[in-house]
């Protein structure tokens, strides 16, 4: 029988893999479609996530540009890469040295929430800047795809069972009680 190159059945993390894959798909429109439209005195400007970061950088708001770039671009991709690595390392049972994957899992669990920054930013600007023909900000479809991608990455991390880094699934928690 031909051996499958990649299987997650033994690790029990198929849901995490499916959600991670869906998040990766959603990140494509999230980064290609505009997330915000800013209209000031007749000038309309559509911004994607990346063009918004570049615009902040051009306006000498480098620290803010770095925060938005990290939260909206680096973290979602880092989460997907990290999750893929965790899934790959547990595909045939627990890895030989689970300490590093466990640290990565803890980091992914912590950083995931910060990706919602751009979604809150879009909601806040849309509600605040409504001055008719003088200035308006409107959320666009890219932000919906981005929010979906972020939620899917959070769900994927939540669905990943970190215990599979230490022992095979369906086994009782091992190890003696230690001081």
């Amino acid at each position, binding site marked *: 029988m031909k051996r499958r190159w990649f299987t997650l059945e033994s690790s029990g993390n198929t849901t995490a893999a499916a959600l991670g894959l869906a998040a990766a798909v959603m990140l494509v429109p999230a980064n290609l479609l505009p997330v915000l439209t800013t209209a000031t005195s007749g000038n309309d400007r559509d911004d994607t996530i990346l063009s918004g970061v570049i615009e902040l950088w051009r306006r000498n708001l480098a620290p803010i540009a770095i925060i938005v770039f990290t939260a909206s671009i680096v973290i979602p991709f880092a989460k997907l890469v990290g999750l893929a690595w965790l899934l790959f390392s547990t595909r045939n049972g627990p890895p030989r040295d689970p300490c590093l994957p*466990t640290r990565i899992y803890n980091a992914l669990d912590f950083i995931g929430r910060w990706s919602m920054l751009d*979604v809150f930013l879009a909601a806040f600007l849309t509600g605040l800047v409504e001055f008719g023909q003088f200035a308006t900000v409107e959320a666009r479809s890219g932000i919906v795809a981005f929010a979906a991608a972020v939620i899917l990455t959070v769900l994927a991390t939540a669905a990943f069972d970190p215990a599979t880094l230490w022992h095979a699934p369906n086994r009782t*928690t091992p190890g003696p009680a230690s001081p």
Partner: protein
Amino acid sequence: MSAEDDPLICAVCGQHHQRVHLKPGEKAECLRCDTVLARGRWMGPEAPLVFAVTGIILAVPACLLPFITAGKLGDKRVSLLFTGVGALWDNGMRTLSMLVLFMGGIVPIGLLVTLVLLLAPPPSRRCVLDPRELARVAAWLERWAIPEVQVLAILVALLKLGSLVDVELGPGFWCYCAMTLSLIFALCGVEKQRLPDGQAILTPEHPK
């Protein structure tokens, strides 16, 4: 079995540990995976409950008082915490507006209420809910409550707006910041654990 006899189970790897007494500033790490299990608290045992109650009280003005005032060419617009939610709803992005409403408002407030029910001393806990269920609900809410991200987003938005409009922070914003801090401090007094069935729970800190 007393609370001290309960094993502390690592939320990540499931390792069982015996409880030890921690001095303020000390932290207990999992012997197997190095995840931080507990920290020695600086404040008294009632502090998390006090912070949770404070957070609930602050949530009321945070929702009702002016959040930000924006002005452009003499026209002023006062926005509340959930004005953005309404704007997204009107734009047809209803799912997104519900998401912002839940993660920035309802879930953090729900978590504060759950923490109060969880941390309140048993004689005064007028709750028919099982504490274990509350602990599960708290752990679930903790994953989705992200008011600190909303605060950062607002600060970024204010800098991003720059010269586009004149903005003025209102009392609602400061109450929301204080509510967020109260929630963070209240969460410092609970332990994240893992049940033998793999479910995560938040439990009040036991004496160690």
